[in-house]
């Protein structure tokens, strides 16, 4: 290996480092279009870079994973490590109220919006909008109200195979399921 090779940064590697820096620094998931602007890559090439990062991170020695949702990307801690290190970052990526509303929907999915609002109060309408925006839940028209259910992204986010895994917990108030 000669000296010039070791110090030279290839254009591909540079794009990857920019993506990593952006995803590490951003407080919110970064949209694909933003990454395209930042790296100057074409979409196909960017997808390759993202796949490359995903592959790197999938190694058991790595603690992060690349999360994708609605063309937005961010780094997440691998689920199996989260309990160990979560005290270092006490702030969850959703507010307490939104989380409670999500829990009511998740444990009862599919559930009528009216029932969720009965339990959570009128503030739930705003929570539901946020959860739809973040692709945690979807809504379908059901008479004069809506039927809410969790999405595949919800299952991916919590690394669940299905909702039964969630409902098996002993601490869950069974009478409200």
């Amino acid at each position: 290996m000669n000296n010039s090779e070791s110090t030279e940064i290839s254009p591909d590697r540079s794009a990857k480092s920019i993506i990593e820096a952006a995803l590490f620094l951003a407080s919110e998931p970064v949209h694909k279009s933003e990454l395209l602007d930042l790296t100057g890559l074409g979409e196909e090439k960017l997808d390759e870079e993202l796949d490359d990062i995903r592959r790197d991170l999938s190694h058991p020695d790595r603690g992060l994973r690349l999360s994708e949702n609605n063309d937005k990307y961010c780094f997440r801690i691998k689920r199996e490590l989260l309990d160990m290190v979560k005290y270092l970052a006490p702030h969850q990526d959703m507010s307490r109220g939104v989380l409670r509303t999500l829990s009511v929907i998740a444990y009862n999915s599919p559930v009528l919006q009216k029932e969720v609002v009965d339990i959570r109060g009128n503030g739930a309408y705003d929570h539901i909008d946020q959860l739809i925006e973040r692709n945690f839940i979807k809504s379908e028209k059901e008479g004069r109200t809506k039927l809410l259910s969790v999405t595949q992204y919800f299952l991916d986010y919590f690394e669940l195979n299905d909702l039964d895994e969630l409902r098996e917990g002993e601490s869950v108030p069974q009478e409200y399921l």
Partner: protein
Amino acid sequence: MAEETEEEAEFAGREGSPVTVQDLTRPDWRERLDEYTYSTDPWDVSVTELASGFMRELDKIGGKNLKLSGRMVLTCAVLLRAKAERLGGRDQTDEQEELEEDLNTGFWGYEEFENDSYIPELELPLKRMSERAVTTDELSQAFSSAVEVYERREERLEEEEETPHSWGMDLESESNFQVKLQRLYRKVKQKLSRGKEVLFSSLLDRDTKEEKFEKFMELLHLQSEGKVRCKQERPFSEIKVELTEDEPPAEPKTESAQKDE
């Protein structure tokens, strides 16, 4: 020297916030605040506790110590600023340097502060603000909490439904209310036999809000039935009650009738 050691022991030994409102009453409050606030993490200082102590102190002294109030406002402002800067990840050394500058320029003195157009410079650091994913345990806890909140709300609503509102009258008992209306109407007529109009206050049995509300409601009913007319010359002035033209005043009571009643 011995005195200093005692004071140090006092401050080192106390629990909770390292700064208390008593510190602000001392002549060397600026130095002490600097020492005990910025030698430690500003987040160790509870502004809430400090403010509560201040309120208690104000109660004791009757709210007349403007100097203490000024120091309190300034201390809280500086503490909040220090906390915000700590959150923003500012370098500790820079922070200490700036504080020293503040001290030298008299920023800590409330007298100087009044004439000083000091505006803290905001520098946004390039630092990641960590937010992590929610765990399934937290989702489960959130569900339990949502259920608890719901149950508490339901219980409260049930209690409210079971407890009748005490508005000074029993709205559910129509006959009881009618009896009260008749009694008040008689009273108005009796009072009017001694004059053209009667003052609302003279119709009250007790000088309480409930009694005033109850009697006023009854008067409004009498007025809507066309038996009396209420007048108020200006807002919040005495209400005067007069009989409508169709309703003659009652005959003056005889002594025996009064005894019967």
